[in-house]
């Protein structure tokens, strides 16, 4: 694999280039942590004020789809980590298949999310579009579903970007992978794992509260 220029003039070596890419990715992830952090702060504030309403809202989410989606996302992260680990010119085809598999699992996640959204629409649980909920907990439930739709939609947008990245890298792996693509793959993998971590917390905040009481 001949490479024209292994690294740009601002770098002293190839590892220097790769380390810089990794640090840059972590800075980007820090900004994303704060984006989702603001949402999670709002969640805690309103859950503190509407404890019963949030538990009631949580009971109206679909725990089966939520749990399945968590398992799907954890598995896709595993496939991406595997692809990064074995990436080399000899194993490029395997990496391509692993990345394709991870992207397909990501799409499966989005499809399940869509089914869940449509069920919630049928149950009149979409604030601002069609929200009907009788009883004293209606305000808290509505706030819960506002958080639910904003957080999961922003997360799904991140998933779609990630799926595009993984698909592009799978295509590169099939065609002409070089050592510098390992850095690109590693950066995309960090992003994908981060999206996974966000979901781990969204799952705990959205689906699990209020299950042990009624």
């Amino acid at each position, binding site marked *: 694999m001949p490479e024209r220029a292994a690294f740009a003039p601002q770098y002293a070596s190839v590892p220097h280039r790769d380390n810089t890419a990794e640090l840059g990715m972590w800075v980007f992830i820090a900004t994303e942590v704060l984006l989702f952090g603001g949402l*999670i702060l709002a969640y805690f504030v309103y859950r503190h004020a509407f404890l019963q309403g949030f538990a009631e809202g949580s009971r109206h989410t679909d725990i089966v789809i939520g749990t399945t989606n968590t398992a799907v996302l*954890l598995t896709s992260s595993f496939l991406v980590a595997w692809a*990064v680990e074995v990436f080399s010119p000899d194993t490029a085809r395997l990496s391509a298949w692993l990345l394709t598999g991870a992207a397909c699992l990501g799409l499966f996640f989005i499809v399940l999310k869509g089914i869940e959204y449509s069920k919630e629409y049928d149950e009149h649980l979409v604030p601002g579009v069609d929200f009907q909920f009788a009883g004293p907990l209606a305000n808290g439930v509505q706030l819960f579903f506002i958080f639910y739709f904003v957080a999961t939609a922003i997360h799904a947008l991140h998933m779609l970007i990630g799926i595009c990245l993984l698909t592009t890298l799978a295509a590169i792996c099939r065609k002409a992978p070089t050592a510098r693509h390992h850095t690109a793959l590693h950066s995309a993998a960090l992003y994908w794992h981060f999206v996974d971590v966000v979901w781990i917390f969204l799952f705990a905040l959205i689906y*699990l509260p209020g299950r042990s009481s009624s």
Partner: protein
Amino acid sequence: MTERRPPLPLVGAWLGLLALLALTVTLAYVPLGAGNAIVALSIGTIKAGLVAAIFMELRHRSGLTLVFAGAGLFWLGILLWLGLMDFMTRT
């Protein structure tokens, strides 16, 4: 022969994450009062730690990378701490 199988730590982390998922869903149905939220968030934190240490390879990193990775958590801590202090302590 190039290694094609997934390394053992990756498989272990994946199975561990699925086991923790099963555990957290099961425990969500056990009445623990306010403990349910603590259990759910603690297991979530352990899962996030596994992903960060093994899938994101932080266990092989040192110094500067850990500082960069920790910076996000540091600012998140300040955001949640100062942001929630007023609401949680208001009578």
